[in-house]
């Protein structure tokens, strides 16, 4: 069964949705640019977590995925879902203009790593120290900040409101992750271990 879902970035929503699918008896077996593929499983048999690997090279991301698979988890790469028609157009144009943008476009294409484990009743968390969580949100903020700046610049340049609307969405995501980052940073300075 293929399901088409679009997430503009909020990872927690994606995790909740995948957990809910598992609760209904469907586990993830594949991903594409806009779709997630499921097959039947026992109700609530699996739990999901998502990590950001857009800052890693392809080899580093693969090494990390192998490490997780060695632990008995299943992993799926997923694009960060910025492929709005608008976004696609921009990235494709920019990708032709040099390695930097081509690398960024490829990185965003496989920026998320969905991790699945058997549900053992415990919460499934990949990052368990506040310091580590803060780093996770900080890294996650960067692509959205870049996109916000890019779209805002396009809006200013073309004077078209559509670009600003997209920029506003990315700005919102950026603020959400910034708040998470600051919260974790505060916890890490207040608590030990």
């Amino acid at each position, binding site marked *: 069964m293929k399901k088409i879902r679009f997430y503009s970035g909020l990872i927690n929503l994606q995790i909740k949705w995948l957990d809910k699918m598992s609760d209904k008896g469907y586990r993830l077996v594949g991903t594409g640019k806009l779709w997630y593929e499921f097959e039947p499983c026992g109700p609530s048999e699996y739990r999901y977590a998502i*990590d950001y690997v857009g800052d890693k090279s392809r080899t580093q991301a693969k090494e990390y995925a192998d*490490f997780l698979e*060695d*632990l008995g988890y299943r992993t799926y790469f997923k694009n960060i879902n910025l492929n709005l028609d608008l976004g696609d157009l921009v990235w494709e144009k920019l990708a032709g203009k040099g390695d930097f943008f081509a690398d960024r476009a490829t990185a965003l294409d496989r920026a998320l790593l969905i991790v699945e484990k058997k549900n053992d009743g415990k919460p499934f968390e*990949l*990052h368990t*120290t506040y310091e*580590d969580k803060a780093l*996770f949100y900080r890294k996650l903020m960067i692509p959205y900040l870049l996109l916000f700046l890019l779209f805002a610049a396009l809006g200013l340049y073309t004077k078209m409101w559509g670009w600003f609307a997209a920029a506003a969405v990315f700005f919102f995501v950026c603020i959400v992750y910034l708040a998470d980052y600051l919260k974790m940073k505060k916890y890490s300075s207040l608590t030990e271990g």
Partner: protein
Amino acid sequence: MRDNVKGGALTEVTFFILLSLYEPKHGYAIMQFIEEMTDGRLSLGAGTLYGAINSLLEKGWIKPYGDVNGRQKKYVITPDGKKAAKTELARLKKLVDFASDTMGEK
């Protein structure tokens, strides 16, 4: 994983990983070891463990063990890692002595 550079104190996670690797272990066994040794109080996420392993490899405190190209990579503590663990043990002993004196529990 940030250990205290100036004071030389290790984080609890770093110290436990070093202790777990006096015998070669793969990632899953390290997680289990830490959970067992702390009666489940310290449950290490896979992402956090991966970051900690890479940072310890970089410091030269642990190294890959056995078939490095095979799946289920194992790691083991190095002489430098043992030195760091010994320093930490001495620091903790001193701390416990001081705490016992201060709190009158000797």
